[in-house]
């Protein structure tokens, strides 16, 4: 009960947060005119006929950014508890954190030197 009372606010918020902005959409859906036609619903490409599939092949570049982001995101998971407890830790904790960050900076330096971070 204790946990749920505490989290009920967030829970209800999660339910209500998408509903509130959905209200105007639904309202607009009810009162706006509905006169669809083929031209109106065609894909918007500045009047040019669409050529081929929407699924063009994307560059690997984007995926690499995603991967590097994932690594740093996981790093955050470790660094947040570290920063949280930092006030009550001794100097060794700073060194531990430093080593942790240093090792990961290595990866960033590697990516940099391998020109993964260049936008091509």
């Amino acid at each position: 009960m204790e946990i749920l009372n505490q989290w009920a606010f967030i829970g209800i918020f999660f339910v209500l947060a998408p509903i509130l902005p959905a209200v105007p959409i639904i309202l607009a859906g009810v009162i706006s005119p509905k006169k669809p036609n083929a031209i109106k619903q065609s894909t918007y490409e500045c009047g040019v006929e669409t050529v081929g599939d929407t699924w063009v092949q994307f560059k690997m570049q984007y995926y690499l950014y995603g991967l590097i982001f994932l690594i740093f995101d996981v790093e955050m998971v470790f660094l947040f508890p570290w920063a949280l407890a930092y006030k009550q830790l001794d100097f060794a904790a700073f060194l531990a954190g430093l080593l942790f960050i240093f090792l990961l900076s290595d990866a960033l330096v590697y990516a940099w030197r391998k020109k993964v971070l260049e936008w091509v």
Partner: protein
Amino acid sequence: MNFGEGLTPEAIAFGLFTLLTLGGAFGVVTTRNLVRGAIWLIVSLFGIAGFFVLLSAPFLASVQVLVYIGAIGILFSFAVMLTRGMTNLKERFNSQWWLAALAAVIAFMLLMVGVIIPVFGNTGAPVSDQVQTTVDLGVALVSGNQYVLPFEVASLLLTAAMIGAIVIAREDD
């Protein structure tokens, strides 16, 4: 809202999250569209974040959303969009479906025997009484006699993962 015996708000929340998790998982395996599959996966992962909240582990719940929905979900969508022509599958099952089914059943059995059955049933006091805070986690991560070595090894592992990903993803040189 006068709930009957056993039908506590926790139970309702648990049911909802179970529905999200299992429903999402069901959606992943049944949809023929890979992007939709990724979206169902996100729904499923969100349900698991809810479980972490119920276990009074808000830090893990937040991490679940941050890493699994924010990073892995996006990475999955990227991966799906990078594979051309794979977004709409004609067949729902491929020829090796029975192998996958067998592997899933065996894995589930192992999980049942190893993890679920030993702790099944009423285990006594609820978790919330002796909750470890996130601060304790932070202290444990860097104190010399606890997890400082795994902490650093995790960093090394992440570095290795990133370098490995870069080596594999880059075709040239």
